[in-house]
Structures are given as C-alpha cells and as structure tokens.
C-alpha cells in the first residue's frame, strides 16, 4: 500500500476535475503504471464543488476504498478554499497545488496551514493565454508532473499529444495550445 501514490483533485463542476484525473490516469498508464481514476459522485451542477481521485502504482492496485489521505491535493479554483477543507487528510509531508496568482506563502497564510508543502500556479492565466479559455486542468497536470516527480514531462507531453491529436484531429491549434499550457505550468509552478 505504501508504494501507491494517492491524489485528490478539487474543482467546480465544468472545470475538468474529472477529466484531469482521467488524463493523468491514462498518461501514467501509457508510461507503464497501474492506475485508478474516479470521481466523487454527488449532485453534479455547473459551478458546484466536485472532487476526483487517482491512485498510481508500479504494482496492480486491488484496493477500492475511497481516498481519505492523499499525498497530493490539487485545487483548480482558488475560491473553493473558502467553502471546502481542501487540506483534509493531507499528511504533514503532503503537497498542495493551487491554481492562483498568489504566492505559496500567501496561500499558507490564508489556510492557516501548518505542515505540508504549498505550491501555486496561475493555471487560469496560462490556460487563457495558450488555449484561449479558462480550462485550468491541463496546466495543473504540468504543475503536478513537476511537483510529484514520478513521471517525466517529455513522456507526458508525448502521450498527451497522441491523445489530443486523435480527439481534435480537425483543430490542431487546440493540441498545440494544451501542450504549451502543460509545458508552461511545468516551468512556472512556484514552490515555498
């Protein structure tokens, strides 16, 4: 159980928290990992808080419990931290990655957080500049790859390119924009 990486995504309905977990799962799988990706099911409404989860391991995963102590938490929407306890269950050596223009120290202060490590990335700005819309999930993936260090960014970009090219065959600008977003977030994520 120790070798399994557990991740929780927080977002608002429509922001792509579920898709982010699926994308990460597929990317990790194509790089030889065993994976799980699953959303939390409740009322599904545009804008309402939602969560999704990943398990990633080098060995087959038989565990099918919910994830209560993730070692990494990603927050796609800064405003969620007013209403959701995004650090619930995050251990002292856990990592929190938030989509915000603020610095990690500001977020730590806002959350009154002791322990854990805080990372920030302005994924919405990157998404607006690269994809032309505020869809923060792909840049968050780039930040996650940097922070977690369990996958190589080159491998993830290659896998993502193959998948997006298949999905957006007639819109090459979407493929380029998304790849750019991942690359930029990977480079720009801020640590404490």
């Amino acid at each position: 159980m120790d070798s399994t990486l557990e991740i929780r995504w927080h977002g608002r309905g429509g922001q792509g928290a579920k898709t982010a977990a699926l994308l990460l799962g597929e990317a990790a799988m194509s790089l030889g990992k065993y994976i799980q990706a699953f959303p939390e099911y409740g009322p599904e409404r545009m804008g309402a808080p939602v969560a999704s989860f990943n398990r990633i391991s080098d060995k087959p995963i038989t565990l099918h419990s919910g994830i209560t102590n993730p070692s990494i938490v990603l927050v796609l929407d800064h405003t969620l931290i007013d209403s959701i306890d995004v650090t619930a269950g995050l251990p002292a050596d856990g990592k929190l990655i938030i989509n915000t223009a603020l610095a990690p120290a500001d977020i730590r202060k806002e959350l009154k957080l002791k322990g854990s490590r805080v990372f920030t990335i302005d994924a919405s700005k990157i998404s607006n500049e690269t994809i032309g819309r505020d869809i923060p999930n792909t840049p968050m993936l780039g930040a996650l790859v940097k922070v977690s260090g369990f996958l190589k960014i080159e491998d993830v970009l290659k896998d993502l390119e193959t998948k997006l090219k298949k999905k957006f065959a007639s819109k090459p600008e979407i493929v380029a924009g998304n790849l750019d977003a991942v690359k930029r977030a990977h480079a720009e994520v801020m640590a404490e």
Partner: protein
Amino acid sequence: MPTAAKTGNEAMAEAMRQINPDVVAAYPITPATEIVMIFASFVADGLVDTEYIPVESEHSAMSACVGASAAGARVMTGTSSQGLALMYEILPIASALRLPIIMSDVNRALSGPINIHCDHSDTMAARDFGWIQIFSENAQEAYDNLIQAVRIAEHPKVKLPTMVTTDGFIISHCLEKIEILEDAQAKQFVGERKAEVSLLDVEHPVTLGALDLPDYYFEHKLQVAEAMRQASQHILEIAKEFEQQTGRKYDLIENYKLDDAEIAIVALGSTAGTTKAVVDELRSKGVKAGLLKIRVFRPFPAEALAKALANVAAVAVLDRADSYSAQGGPVYTEISSALYGKTKAPKLINYVYGLGGRDVTIDDIRGVFSDLQKIDKMPTFNYFGVRE
C-alpha cells in the same frame, strides 16, 4: 493482448461491442446508464449489427429481451437497482423459458430511502429467479465475466439467463488498466447462438410461455433446478477455455492466500480487492490471514466453499445486503448452510456492511480480521461502518 484504460461500464460496453448481440433492449438508470449509452453509440456508428430497442421501462426491456430471445436471437441488456426491481416480474419467466439472456447489472442499493450508490441488495433480491449470477471484483473481471457469460448462458446443458455484476460507482465509474481480447478472438470465443427452437421458424411451429398448470409446472421448474446444478461444471470448462486464450484464471470462487490461513474473510465484488490489500499487509506481519472471494453466487458453490474453508479456524462472511431475516445476510446464510454437518468447518461470524455506498476502508477490514482473532468473544451478527 491490447491494454486500455476503461471504467467498469466502458469495459462492459466494450465486451458488448465485441459480442455484437442480435438485440439489445434497455432503459437507462444510474449508475448503469453508460453501458447502454456507449453501446447505443456503437449501434449509431455502425460498429455492431445489433437491433437496439429503446423501450419505455425496464419491465418492457426484459419483456422485449424475452421475446427476442425466444425468436432465437442473442440478447443482452443492462440495468441497476430499481431498474432490476422493475424486471423482477419477468426474470423467472426468462429462466423458465430457458432463454439465455445476458445482463450486466451495476449493483446499487434498492430504494428506499432513495440512494444511487453501491450495495448488493438489487441482485441479492433476484437470487431465486433461476438466473446465473456472477460478481466482478474490478473492470477486468467485468469484461472477462461478460464475455464468458455468453457461453455459459447459451451452453446447451445450461440454457439459463445470466447476469454479471459490478459494484456501482466503485467499479462502474473507476478507470483502470485492463486487457482486451482482439475483436476476432472475442468473436471466435463467443461464437454464434444456436437456438434449438425459434418462434420465427414457421416451418417448425412451437409454443412458448403457455399456461402450465399442476400437471406440468413442477416438472419445468425441476428442469431449471437441474440446469442450475449442471451449470457449475460448464462454467468451469468455459473458464478453462478462457484461460487458454487470455492467461487469466477463473473459478467459481477465488482463494487468496487461503491455503494455510487461520483467519479469513469471505467477500464479493470490489471489497474482495480491498481485502486482498489488507491480507498482504497482515501476511507481512506474520498473521495468517486469507480471503475467499465468491465469483459465482448462482449456482452457489457450496462444495468448493466448504472444502476451501475446512482448515480455517475463523471466518467472517461480509454481506453488502441485509435480508432482514434477523438471521444474517444472504451470503452468510448460504455459507452456514453449506457448512452444516461438515466435520471440519470454521467458526463463522457475519457482517452487514457498505449499504447505500458506505465506504469500505482498510481500517474496517483490519477491524474484521482483528475480531476474528478473538472470535469466541464475538456475537454472530455484526455490522461495520455504521453509526449505532
């Protein structure tokens, strides 16, 4: 063999695409909707030759399945919870007419109170309708079981409708890595249905579903019971053939680190997977823990079970449904009946758990194993994960 990332629902829809049934009649219901939704897109995209009948209710879905199957077609459907409950009236008709209809059921709590999450109350309530029931631990098993179900249901010595289940949301909506047969390999494995009679064969007219009074009803029901008794050996033969193709081994039950186990859990579905993780943990600490997973619940593998548990000292049977008999859950009563009169049998306790999607944690399972180490002080009927 190709691998893919699939949810339980996607895995079942993929199996259906490869099976390419003649008729699918279904009505959508959470959390099984995706299965028939994805399959409907296969129909629309021309990837299958199936006649897809979008009916107005599950009662109609099963009725349409009965009609189409009686006409000689290979027929599939998918449902969950209240949807299955609305089919209950027709389920024993399908088995009495010996129609090999294949169903995927995504296990979801029966209302009420209304709930959309996993427990086994829907299929446990359907256990006495003459359907073969196969439970899946994960997306891979959901796919593998559905492919095998076609052969099981249509086997000339069986000819019984068959349902394959997954745990709602826990498996149905969880993306996992699975291996999929090549299309041609799957097609060859399932073959074609060879119905002995067909309502559409006007050269050889037959009557199906006629009034069956005290003079014959009993004999027909006896034949269903006999087919169910025969089914186990054919399920095993088909599993063997499937293993030759895929390397993936299936049985009526799965024994996990059970051979030298002193304490063991019996579970169905995804909880068996979570239990495996805890068994591994306990084994690394020198505790002789094991798991017995029931894959086939109907026919009930009583003999295999009694044999597998004979040398275990203490066993906890986990029921993700209550039968409100005040005598434990349905799996517990089946197992205690299977062990009755055996000279070597474990001490047995029961837990009802996980109703309405209540999470099953590692700590819950650790707690059960810890209870088993002091079984003499335990009551027979227990719960975990519930506020009392």
